[in-house]
C-alpha cells in the first residue's frame, strides 16, 4: 500500500500538528509523502518517533528504507536514527532533517494553506536542516517547475485565486471573527502590554507575534524617533477607548512609555459593500485570496508613511518655537507610531508570514536612506525646519486623510474600522499644520503692519512662505498617483478603496460605470480635454476632493490676512504645477496652472519654489524656545492651550 502511495502521481502532505504523534506506520506514511509540515508550538507539543517499522520492514520499491532514501546524502545519519530510535519534538525532528517545514503556531493555518496551494507552480523552500540532511535525495523530489515571479515559500502571484478562502470569509468566517474582535461596542483592554480593543488577550498566537515585534518597534523609536527627548515628560493625549472622547485622555508620559495600542472603530456585523462590483454583499472579515496582494500593497504603502514621517521630523525638537509646539510635534509623532501599529496589526492578523515580513520591513526602510528608502517620495524629503513641518502636516498629512478616508470605505472591514479610528487622530495633525502656517502668516502680517521687514527680525516673509506652500502642496498632490489609473479602477471595482465619503451616498452611481471624467492633458504647447472612464479616474477624483479641502484652508488663512489689513494673499498652486506623477509630469506649469516652456520654468524656479538661500534663511531662524509661554519671533502664539491648559503650561518637563 505504501509503495502505491509513493508511486501515485498525486501529492501528499503530512500535517504534524496539535494532538498528533507520528511514530511507526504513521511516520512511514509521513515519510512516503511529499512534504511534512510540523507545528512548533510550546503549548501544544507534538512527537515524531522513529521506531522498528522504519528499520527495513516496509521497504520502498528501490529496496531502501524510507530513512535511507531520505538521507541518501548522509547514510550514517539514517543508520544513527534507526539505531537510536529517538522520540522527538517537532523542533528536534526538524534538526534531524525529518521535517520539510517547521511552522510556528502563528504561521500554521496561513502557511499550510498558501504553501500547499502553491504546489503546482512554485517549489517551496524546505527548512535548512532538511536540505542539509537530504542533499538532493528524497523519496519524491519536488518537480522542477517554472517559478518566475514567485518568491520561494511565499504566496503565489496576485492572479492566484483562492476561492475557498473567499467562500469561508463570506459565510461563516465573518460573524465569528467580528464577534471576537469587537463587532458592535468593543471592550478596551488598557491593562494589557499592548492596549487594544481587538481581543488580543484571547488570541495567544497573534499576541505572541505582536509581542515579538514590539521590542523592534521600541528599538526603532529610540534610534530614529524624536532625538534626545525620550527621557522627558511630555503632556500627551493617549487613546483609552474608541468612542467619542475615548482618545482624549491627557497626562505626562515619557515617549517610549507611551501606550501604543491597537484600536478599531466599532463595527457593524451586517455592514454591506456600498460601491464597486460587489455592491450589496456583506463586507469581508477575512482577506479574499484574489485581493490578498493588492490589499497587502495598500496597507504596506499606507503603513510605510507612518514611521517615515517620524523619521523625517526627528531633529525638530531641538528648534521648537515654543513648548506648546514641541508638545504638538511629539503628539503627532507618537500617534504616527500608533498608526504604524494599526497597520502592523492588520498585516500580522490577516497576511501570515508575508505580513510579518512586511511589518519587519517597515522598520528596516528609512526615510532618505539611499539604499532602503521609504516607498513614497514625499516621505524621503527632509523636514528640518518648522515651516516644513507645518506645511507637511497641512498638505501631506491631508493626503493621508484622503487616503485613509478612501480606505475607510473598504469592503475589508478590519481595514475600514482601523482607518476610521486613525482619521480621528489625523485631524489633530492637520490642525497642527493649518494653525501653524496660519500663525506664521499672522506674525508676518503683524510685522508688515508695523512697517517692519520680517527679514530684519528673523521672521518669515510672505513670499518665502508661499514658496514653501507651493513645494509641499505640489509634492503632496503627487501622492495621489496618476490621474488615469487602471490600478485605481481595479481597487474601486474590488471594493477595496472608495471615493471620499462614498458611504454617505452622495454619488449617483455607486458602481461608477456610466460616466466619464474630463481632464486637460498637455499636447504640444496647449491643453486638450480628454475623457477617461470614471473608474480609471478614481485618483483624480480623490485629488479633486483634496484640492477643494486645501483651498478651504487657504481661504481661511486669507480671511485672517484680510482682517489684519495686509495686501498679501496666499494662493494654492494649481494641481498641474511641479508634478512628478500623472499626466502633468514632464511638463512645465506656473503655480497658476499655465503651460510654459522649460526655459521659462528654469528661469522662474526661484520665484516659485524654495531656493537653497531660502532654506538656509529659514534654518537660521529656527532657534529653540523652551520657556513656558514664550514663542519664537517668527510665529504668533497659539490662541488657546491644549485641553484647556493655560498657554504658559509646562507641556514638556525636561529631565
Amino acid at each position: 500500500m505504501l509503495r502505491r502511495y509513493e508511486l501515485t502521481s498525486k501529492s501528499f502532505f503530512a500535517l504534524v500538528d496539535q494532538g498528533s504523534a507520528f511514530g511507526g506506520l504513521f511516520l512511514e506514511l509521513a515519510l512516503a509523502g511529499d512534504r511534512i509540515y510540523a507545528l512548533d508550538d510550546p503549548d501544544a507539543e507534538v512527537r515524531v518517533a522513529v521506531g522498528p517499522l522504519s528499520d527495513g520492514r516496509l521497504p520502498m520499491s528501490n529496496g531502501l528504507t524510507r530513512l535511507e532514501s531520505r538521507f541518501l546524502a548522509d547514510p550514517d545519519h539514517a543508520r544513527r536514527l534507526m539505531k537510536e530510535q529517538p522520540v522527538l519534538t517537532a523542533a528536534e525532528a526538524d534538526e534531524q532533517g525529518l521535517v520539510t517545514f517547521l511552522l510556528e503556531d502563528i504561521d500554521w493555518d496561513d502557511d499550510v494553506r498558501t504553501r500547499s496551494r502553491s504546489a503546482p507552480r512554485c517549489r517551496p523552500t524546505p527548512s535548512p536542516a532538511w536540505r542539509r540532511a537530504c542533499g538532493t535525495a528524497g523519496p519524491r523530489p519536488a518537480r522542477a517547475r517554472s517559478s518566475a515571479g514567485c518568491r520561494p515559500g511565499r504566496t503565489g502571484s496576485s492572479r492566484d485565486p483562492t476561492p475557498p478562502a473567499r467562500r469561508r470569509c463570506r459565510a461563516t468566517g465573518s460573524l465569528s471573527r467580528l464577534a471576537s474582535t469587537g463587532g458592535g461596542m468593543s471592550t478596551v483592554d488598557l491593562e494589557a502590554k499592548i492596549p487594544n480593543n481587538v481581543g488580543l488577550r484571547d488570541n495567544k498566537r497573534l499576541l505572541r507575534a505582536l509581542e515579538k515585534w514590539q521590542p523592534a518597534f521600541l528599538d526603532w523609536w529610540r534610534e530614529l524617533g524624536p532625538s534626545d527627548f525620550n527621557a522627558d515628560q511630555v503632556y500627551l493625549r493617549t487613546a483609552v477607548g474608541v468612542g467619542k472622547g475615548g482618545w482624549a485622555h491627557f497626562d505626562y508620559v515619557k515617549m517610549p512609555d507611551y501606550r501604543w495600542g491597537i484600536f478599531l472603530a466599532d463595527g457593524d456585523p451586517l455592514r454591506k459593500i456600498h460601491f464597486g462590483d460587489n455592491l450589496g454583499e456583506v463586507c469581508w472579515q477575512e482577506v479574499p485570496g484574489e485581493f490578498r496582494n493588492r490589499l497587502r500593497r495598500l496597507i504596506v504603502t499606507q503603513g510605510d508613511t507612518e514611521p517615515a514621517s517620524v523619521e523625517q521630523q526627528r531633529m525638530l525638537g531641538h528648534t521648537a518655537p515654543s513648548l506648546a509646539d514641541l508638545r504638538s510635534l511629539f503628539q503627532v509623532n507618537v500617534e504616527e507610531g500608533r498608526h504604524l501599529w494599526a497597520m502592523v496589526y492588520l498585516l500580522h492578523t490577516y497576511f501570515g508570514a508575508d505580513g510579518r515580513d512586511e511589518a519587519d520591513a517597515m522598520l528596516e526602510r528609512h526615510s532618505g536612506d539611499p539604499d532602503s528608502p521609504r516607498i513614497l517620495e514625499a516621505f524621503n524629503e527632509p523636514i528640518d525646519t518648522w515651516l516644513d513641518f507645518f506645511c507637511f502636516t497641512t498638505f501631506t498629512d491631508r493626503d493621508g486623510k484622503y487616503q485613509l478616508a478612501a480606505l475607510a470605505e473598504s469592503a475589508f472591514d478590519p481595514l475600514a474600522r482601523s482607518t476610521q479610528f486613525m482619521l480621528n487622530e489625523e485631524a489633530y495633525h492637520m490642525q497642527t499644520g493649518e494653525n501653524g502656517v496660519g500663525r506664521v502668516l499672522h506674525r508676518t502680517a503683524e510685522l508688515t503692519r508695523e512697517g517692519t521687514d520680517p527679514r530684519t527680525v528673523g521672521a518669515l516673509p510672505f513670499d518665502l512662505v508661499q514658496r514653501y506652500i507651493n513645494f509641499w502642496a505640489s509634492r503632496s498632490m503627487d501622492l495621489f498617483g496618476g490621474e488615469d489609473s487602471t490600478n485605481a479602477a481595479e481597487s474601486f471595482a474590488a471594493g477595496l478603496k472608495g471615493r471620499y465619503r462614498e458611504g454617505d451616498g452622495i454619488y449617483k452611481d455607486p458602481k461608477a460605470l456610466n460616466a466619464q471624467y474630463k481632464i486637460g492633458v498637455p499636447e504640444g504647447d496647449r491643453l486638450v480635454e480628454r475623457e477617461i472612464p470614471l473608474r480609471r479616474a478614481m485618483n483624480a477624483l480623490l485629488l479633486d476632493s483634496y484640492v477643494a479641502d486645501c483651498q478651504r484652508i487657504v481661504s481661511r488663512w486669507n480671511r485672517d490676512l484680510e482682517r489684519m489689513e495686509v495686501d498679501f494673499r496666499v494662493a494654492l498652486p494649481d494641481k498641474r504645477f511641479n508634478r512628478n506623477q500623472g499626466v502633468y509630469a514632464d511638463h512645465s506649469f506656473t503655480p497658476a496652472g499655465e503651460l510654459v516652456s522649460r526655459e521659462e520654468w528654469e528661469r522662474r524656479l526661484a520665484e516659485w519654489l524654495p531656493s537653497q538661500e531660502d532654506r538656509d534663511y529659514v534654518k537660521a531662524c529656527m532657534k529653540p524656545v523652551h520657556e513656558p509661554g514664550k514663542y519664537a519671533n517668527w510665529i504668533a502664539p497659539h490662541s488657546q492651550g491644549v485641553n484647556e491648559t493655560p498657554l504658559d503650561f509646562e507641556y514638556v518637563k525636561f529631565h
Partner: protein
Amino acid sequence: METRLVYVCDGGDCNERGSSNLYHRMRTWFEERDPHEERVKVRRYPCFGGCEFGPNITVWPDRIFYSQVKVDDLDDIIRHIEGEGEPVKRLCGKVKPDVEEFLWQMLDSPY
C-alpha cells in the same frame, strides 16, 4: 422623497462648543424614527472651515448651512429636516459663501 444627509461638524472649534452633543441628540432622534436611514442620514464631518461660527450643521440636498447652533435650536432644525417646517433662517448665512461652496461642490458631485 430624496434621503437627506445631515452633517454635524466634528472639527476642534465646533466640538468645544458642543457639536458632539448636538450630533448624538440628532442621531438618537432619527435612529428611533428612521432606523434604516431611508429618510435621513446623520453623519459627523471633520471640519467645514466655518470654525468661527460653530457649531455648524448642514442639510443636503437642501443646501442649508446652519451656524452657531444650540441645543434649543434642534427642534426647529429637525422640524425642517422632517419636512414639517421652513429652514431656520436665523441660523443661516453666517459663514462666508466660499465655506459653503466647498461643501456643496463635494456633495453636488456630477458622478
